[in-house]
């Protein structure tokens, strides 16, 4: 048993932290306030190699393993970068590029990965629909094979990056009768006839990320753009969970560390009743609860990353535990961060309220906490 990271990993994490703190975080407050995606941030992510982190160097990436990807995500969160840009990065790299990397043909990888790695193309993944989220297998977007193309019809919603994306990984069904087994994955390009995206949605948190519906209206997809073979979509979606439960949520861990540091500094300097408020137990209790959360979340996330790197298949039980705890307890402790700051906690310039709004997504996106509990309960009941 070994919980340490190597010196090389530590130095890498340190360099990502410094980059994010100096070059990205200063732009976050305004981006979140306006709810606007900042392309300068995106370009810098690309130049730093973050967008293609897990992609092999031969396709323009950095060839990083799961643990390294988590370290980078944690560092960016720790630097105080807003949830919006972090989510945009996560969806692009781990929900879109990673799928193409893991399931793509050589031709698909060569076409899409290099530009996704630089960030010239923005990618997204569309599974959720207006009529089905938790019950993802009940999706109604259809795909029909006609000669040398598939024709896709239906709509997706809550798709991170959709308004800005060139590359869409879309899940549709070839045969509803086959249920899970009919679901198939497709790579759709913005230029293909019949695809359009809706207006960006206004969200509680992660506001700088662009989120919208995706409309497929007899969208024509070349036959060679089927990803991973017909009928394999459900397995591909489940497989994507391993990224979602580790690399995608690692920034939450960093964000909470950022919050803890801000809370500690504030508690040291803010005075009430003739003393710094750190002397009050109600303040200490919140700091302690944040620290406990951080240590537990760290273990949960890196356990998955470390076992993936050792070649162990993802344990769905572990994944569900992760998501549930990181999401639920994350939001609770983020709310305590706001409490600690008192009135100032409610004001946008103090970063805690943004952390709380961003943290709410942890309980909802990528699988709700209710579903996580359902997954664990089903396992226990077997």
């Amino acid at each position, binding site marked *: 048993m070994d*919980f340490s990271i190597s010196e090389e990993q530590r130095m890498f994490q340190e360099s990502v932290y410094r980059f994010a703190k100096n070059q990205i975080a200063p732009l976050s407050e305004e981006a979140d306030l306006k709810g606007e995606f900042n392309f300068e941030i995106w370009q810098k992510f690309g130049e730093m190699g973050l967008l293609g982190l897990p992609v092999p160097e031969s396709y323009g990436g950095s060839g990083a393993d799961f643990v390294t990807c988590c370290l980078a995500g944690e560092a960016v969160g720790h630097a105080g970068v807003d949830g919006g840009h972090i989510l945009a990065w996560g969806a692009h790299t781990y929900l879109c590029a990673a799928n193409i990397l893991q399931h793509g043909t050589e031709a698909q990888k060569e076409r899409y990965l290099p530009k996704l790695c630089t960030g010239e193309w923005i990618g997204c993944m569309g599974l959720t629909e207006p009529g089905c989220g938790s019950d993802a297998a009940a999706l109604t977007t259809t795909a029909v094979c006609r000669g040398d193309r598939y024709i896709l019809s239906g709509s997706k919603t809550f798709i991170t990056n959709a308004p800005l994306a060139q590359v869409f990984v879309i899940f549709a069904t070839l045969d509803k009768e086959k249920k899970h087994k009919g679901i198939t994955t497709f790579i759709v390009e913005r230029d293909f006839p019949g695809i359009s995206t809706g207006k960006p949605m206004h969200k509680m948190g992660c506001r700088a990320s662009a989120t919208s519906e995706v409309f497929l209206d007899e969208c024509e997809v070349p036959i060679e753009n089927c990803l991973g073979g017909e009928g394999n979509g459900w397995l591909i979606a489940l497989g994507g969970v391993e990224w979602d439960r580790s690399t995608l949520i690692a920034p939450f861990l960093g964000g909470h560390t950022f919050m803890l540091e801000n809370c500690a500094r504030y508690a040291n300097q803010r005075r009430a009743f003739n003393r710094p408020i750190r002397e009050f137990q109600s303040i200490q209790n919140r700091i302690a609860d944040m620290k406990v959360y951080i240590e537990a979340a760290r273990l949960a996330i890196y356990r998955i990353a470390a076992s993936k*790197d050792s070649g162990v298949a993802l344990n769905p039980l572990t994944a569900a535990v992760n998501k549930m705890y990181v999401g639920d307890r994350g939001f609770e402790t983020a709310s305590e961060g706001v409490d600690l700051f008192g009135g100032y906690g409610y004001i946008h310039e103090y970063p805690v309220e943004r952390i709380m709004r961003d943290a709410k997504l942890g309980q909802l996106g990528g699988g709700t906490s209710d579903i996580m509990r359902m997954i664990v309960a089903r396992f226990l009941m077997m």
Partner: protein
Amino acid sequence: MDYELSEGHKRLQAEMGAFCREKIAPGAALLDVAPFEEAAARMKANLKALASAGYLPLCLGTDLLGRSVAGEELARACPATFLAATSSAILFGRSVKRFGTEAQQERYLPSIAAGDAIGAFACTEAEAGSDLGGMAVTAEKRDGRWILNGEKDLVTNAPIADAFLILAWTDRNTGLEKGTGFFLVPRSAEGLTIEKPSETMGLRGALTSSVRFSNCAIGEEALLGEAAGAGYNQMAAVMEEVKLAVAALGIGIGVACMEESTRHGKTKKAFGKPIGLFEGVGAKLAIMFTLNDLGRMMTHKAAWAMEQKDPESAVLNSCAKLFTSEAAGRIADLAIQVHGGHGYLKGTAVERLYRDARFAAIAYGTSEMQRAFIAKESLDRFRDA
């Protein structure tokens, strides 16, 4: 980075689990309700069995991760036995092992390891728990002997112990860190009175009572490590190992509650199906699983960090103790609810586990003290000049 237990620890876990299921678990319910004489006899027999199984020697050694792994299995089978074993082998035994003179170690450790003698450890008093500065027990040097006066409360194992470690003032004026001694007192010492057993809410098989000293005279050789003034620091050092042990207790109770609740969820039917299939029950099982799973990782990391002498180990240890102890309480509460009306009856396992669980968030550093300690570390680290 590697989250897997070593092969050796996996074997230990399996063997300890099998041993506890067979030899310890069956007596757990009875220990909770047995009258004093019977409880004392059963606990002594359990400790002897744990000695033969290698658990007491493990507690005296330095394999902290092994202790956590094996300890969880024991706590799951019988939390009361876990507490008694911990009090004897870790609180008492490790104090002697780490700080005793060779003679003191030779006198006590072999019989503690063999389960032939039982140790007890006394710090808490009526006016001193979290704040040991409020202690009143004194040790006065007179004619080459130490004279102890005062009373210690809540001494686990006192009714059955052969030897006690007592924290007492040697010089109150110099304060806790320089003015206390840890004294080895045999049961036979004159002036030592073991009061009748206290009635505790839970862990009732771990017999507990107050211990009173009236001019109790012991020899010079009774001072642990012959280190005058060092008692509090010795105690604090061993307390780190005790915190780790209490974390294992929390997980063990949590796992026992989860297993009982899962079994109930599968077998009890309502409205046409096993109740575990209703979210109202299933979600609770999921929370139990999650808290145990995370608590276990935190405890293992704390053990690893302590073995590595990692500067973060004290905070991680505190985080683990806080998390698992509060988790045990929450899990036990959920378990009663899952069992419905029958959960409210004496004789149902979760009723006992609920009372057992309550101990964890109080003992060996209350949750309040853990939070204060954890917060201080962060507050001190992140302050602008």
